[in-house]
């Protein structure tokens, strides 16, 4: 179809504009792709941090050893009595008593001198070395309060409050990422619509002549649509190549920033294909909006 031969005119008449636009489209799409990946990957991490807690419940010194198991049972009951419906499968709640002996053993590994000193205290040791129950897993928000109410529990400490800051920070990152994605989309669209307008102006002589020959609206629009699509597709292809070769490197670097981010899933190289489709679609859409024709119909 000879109408389509016109679609490549912008590449001939203003080659640099088309190339720059394609590169810009590719770069912005690649960036948007990374942001989308980051944004989507942060979701489960934030979710887990919000639910996961480690509660340390210190047992009163006056509680006798034979009562320890009773306290442990009531804690299990408290925590198990509120099974969270959306608890992650396979994530079990762990309740365990850390006896003084175990505490000393842990201490021995890290601070051997201190450990030796405490052990030399003999029976008085029990007065200083804490006995505590460590509860970890995906726990309901009320878990800490519930455990606090159990008789024989002295102090309850939850890791939830410590996570609050990092969850807040990650939420802010997600939020900023989403705004950036929208901003990128707007920039991409604006640039392409501008290009489509420029290309329409380049086509003006041909469009005027085609209208004179009795071309239909579709025939008049086809060259512009295909020009836009070719730029979008070229940009998409560049992004695809960039993604294919760059994404693993990028993901490894992001994951290395923090053990927390190590939970991010590795992105799929197959995403490359969707860049091509997205590029073509964006190019097509921009040319629909950018079509101008000043000659009378």
């Amino acid at each position, binding site marked *: *179809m*000879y*109408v389509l*031969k*016109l679609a490549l*005119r912008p590449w*001939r*008449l203003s080659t640099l504009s088309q190339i720059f636009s394609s590169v810009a489209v590719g770069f912005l799409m690649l960036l948007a792709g990374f942001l989308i990946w980051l944004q989507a990957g942060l979701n489960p991490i934030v979710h887990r941090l919000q639910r996961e807690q480690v509660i340390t419940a210190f047992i009163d010194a006056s509680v006798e050893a034979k009562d320890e198991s009773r306290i442990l049972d009531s804690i299990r009951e408290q925590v198990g009595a509120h099974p969270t419906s959306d608890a992650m499968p396979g994530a079990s709640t762990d309740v365990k008593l850390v006896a003084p002996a175990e505490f000393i053993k842990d201490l021995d590994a890290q601070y051997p001198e201190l450990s030796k000193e405490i052990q030399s205290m003999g029976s008085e040791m029990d007065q200083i070395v804490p006995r505590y129950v460590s509860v970890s897993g995906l726990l309901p928000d009320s878990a800490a309060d519930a455990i606090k109410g159990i008789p024989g529990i002295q102090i309850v400490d939850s890791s939830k409050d410590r996570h609050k800051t990092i969850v807040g920070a990650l939420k802010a990152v997600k939020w900023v990422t989403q705004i950036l994605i929208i901003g990128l989309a707007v920039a991409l669209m604006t640039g392409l619509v501008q290009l489509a307008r420029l290309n329409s102006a380049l086509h003006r*002589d*041909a469009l*005027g*002549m*085609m*209208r*004179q*020959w*009795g*071309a*239909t609206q579709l*025939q008049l629009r086809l060259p512009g649509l295909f020009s836009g699509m070719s730029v979008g597709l070229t940009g998409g292809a560049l992004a695809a190549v960039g993604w294919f070769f760059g994404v693993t490197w990028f993901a490894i670097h992001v994951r290395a920033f923090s053990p927390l981010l190590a939970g991010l899933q590795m992105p799929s190289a197959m995403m490359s294909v969707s860049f091509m489709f997205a590029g073509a679609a964006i190019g097509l859409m921009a040319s629909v909006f950018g079509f101008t024709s000043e000659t*009378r*119909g």
Partner: protein
Amino acid sequence: MIHLSSVTKWYHNQVRVLDQVNLDLKKGEFIYVIGGSGAGKTSLLRILATEEAPSQGSISLFGYNLATVSPSTLRAIRQSVGYVPQNVRLIPDLSVFDNVALSLSLAGHRSIRGEAKTRIEEVLGRLHLVQKRDKLANTLSGGEAQRVAIARALVRQPQLIIGDEPTGAQDKENTWSMMDLLMKNNINGATCVIATHDREIVRRVRKRCAVLTAGRLGFEEAMCTY
């Protein structure tokens, strides 16, 4: 076929380029529009080719009043017209063949690929353009470009041919082969409106003529003695 009544045209509310022009043309007629430079020939032909609307008065083509015609009918009318504009207007970065082929592909009647190719090559041959077939339009001389514009108009076998000084940039030999081609189309039923100020053509190929002077259609003759 063509009916103009009191067609008046002015640009930017200034001087009248066409003043109360009346014209009637039957199917298969051939008419010269004669007049000096600035007489309004191009303005008249642009209106006939539906490129512009008159400021006042009415025009009908193929029995349709252009002021009230639907877009799809207007397209059909345009598909039946072969227009050679004075400023040629080829698409500069397409080849000669593609310029002609584009016009043919937009002419509406479906034709077999091979048949279209033969027809394009035949027209190019008659206008001595075979050697230029694959040259880009922007590499052509003025005369060659004008002949391509004629090929582009005639290849669609139009029912109405509008030529704005189509022989303006041609040498003798090409002028006569072009007139020959026009006459052949005319004999086959095409209505022709040809603007010119070439007295020799008008004297050699005697036809009806209309003389424009300062926008007025001064006198019409059945056989031109311009």
